[in-house]
């Protein structure tokens, strides 16, 4: 088929980019207020998965939308976009956060790790492998956020018991309800003494 060279993801990305153009107002005006410079399109320099990026963006853009729509790192998922579901969990300066609750403009000089930055080449991170080994997913939509949360949880030292794992994984919802298998995966990964995303 001739259309097979265009992936679903490419098609969606193009559509989103066009839609983005049509709704983004030209807010290039800069205004002073005392010593501070207020900008509608601030510049940031930050690092994602070890790669440095410099870009200028609308002040409203969240880290989640920056990752998915500017940097095309679509492993980080957009679930609720209200900080409720955890599907967008990434590591910011080594700590897990909801990417939908972070304004990208605040990221200058900071470092982000996403699910794409977890594996070493083709070798999965042990937490990723543990989720496969223990069937810690069904539809898979929440899984990148679950894995990012789990790697952080283990590094934080919160895998002491199943109850503690459940409590410290509570910010990641799984509508397929794979929770028992997720706890199994986190326990197994923690006991094999794997650490954070590095």
């Amino acid at each position, binding site marked *: 088929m001739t259309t097979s060279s265009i992936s679903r993801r490419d098609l969606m990305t193009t559509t989103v980019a066009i839609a983005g153009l049509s709704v983004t*107002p030209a*807010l290039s*005006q*800069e*205004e002073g*207020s*005392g*010593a*501070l*410079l*207020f*900008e*509608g399109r*601030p510049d940031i320099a930050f690092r994602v998965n070890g790669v440095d990026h410099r870009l200028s963006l*609308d*002040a*409203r853009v*969240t880290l989640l939308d920056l990752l998915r729509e500017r940097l095309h790192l679509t492993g980080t998922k957009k679930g609720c*976009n*209200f*900080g409720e579901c*955890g599907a967008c*969990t990434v590591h*910011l300066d080594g*700590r*897990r*956060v*909801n990417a*939908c*609750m*972070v*304004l990208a*403009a*605040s990221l*200058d000089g900071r470092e982000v790790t996403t699910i794409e930055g977890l594996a070493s080449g083709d070798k999965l991170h042990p937490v990723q492998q543990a989720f496969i080994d223990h069937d810690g997913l069904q539809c898979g939509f929440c899984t990148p956020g679950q894995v990012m*949360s789990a790697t*952080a*949880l283990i590094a*934080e030292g*919160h895998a002491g018991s199943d109850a503690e794992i*459940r*409590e*410290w994984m*509570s*910010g*990641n919802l799984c509508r397929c309800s794979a929770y028992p298998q997720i706890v199994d995966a986190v326990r197994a990964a923690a006991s094999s003494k794997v650490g954070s995303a590095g």
Partner: protein
Amino acid sequence: MHSFSFARAASLPDVLAAGAQPQTMFLAGGTELLNWMRLGIVSPERIVDIGRVEGLDRIEPLPDGALRIGALVRLNDAAQHEAVMRDYPVLSQAILKAASPQLRNLATIGGNPAQRTRCAYFRSEDKLPCNKREPGSGCSALHGINDRHAIFGWTEACVAVQPADPPVALAALDAVFVTEHRDGGRRIPATEFHTLPDKRPQDHNVLRRGELITAIELPAPAHRSAYLKIRERESYEFATVSAAAALEMDGSTIRRARIALGSVAHRPWRLKAAEERLAGIGIGDRAALRAAIEASFTDARPLSHNAYKIPLAKNAALRVIETAARMPS
């Protein structure tokens, strides 16, 4: 989300000068501000990122055993700080029962008390009558679904509750919110920070435009303190009712008790009448404890769907007192 312009501030004077301008809001953890903007609850023209202001992210001891927590300390860091865990278990527990681990890595101890009510009418994506969203438009919850709403201190203008956990612990501890403003700062008792809806129902707290909480001060340690959060699931849920207690004991007798309830009013609700009666009661005398607590419920007024909160709150107060008494001194 509406358009706004953005600036990063490095110093407190810059923050205060910018914050005094109209249509300007502060960004710290962002876990509330971003959702307010998404819902159209606020639409500031300018946002000042205060996240890198020097000196606001430290926890330091003060004379007389008090502790000062800088406003930008993340919730998870405050809760797991050695001195907080050891000397103020009620605060550590309240924080760790709030939100999710990811949100607690963003949210700050100084921003958390400014969380606004979770009343579904207030947070509705389609604008509904709400005197907090639109003064004078009425209160949808008064005769609507109000099972999660207030039993104390409400008026017909607003029946919402203050939803956050840490402020309930801070009220029981008699903590002080230290603020700065271009025209001078002040010290606000945690018990007086949130406003009741009797005068200006649109307000949530006493902060003026451009006023910033820079630190929270905890007075002398409260080793025998505890937090109880009752909710519809085990984790990651707002309280139906919560209770904080800080006790001083002579053996098994209560010398001084400070009790605050959460999610029952528009501010953490101190049980002053009960506190007076609790002094001198033996911790094993459950009937006397219950009778003392009862004294603070004479002015409880249930709405159409939340009468259940009254016995729930009484029982929560009893349990948290008994739990606090068992904490090591």
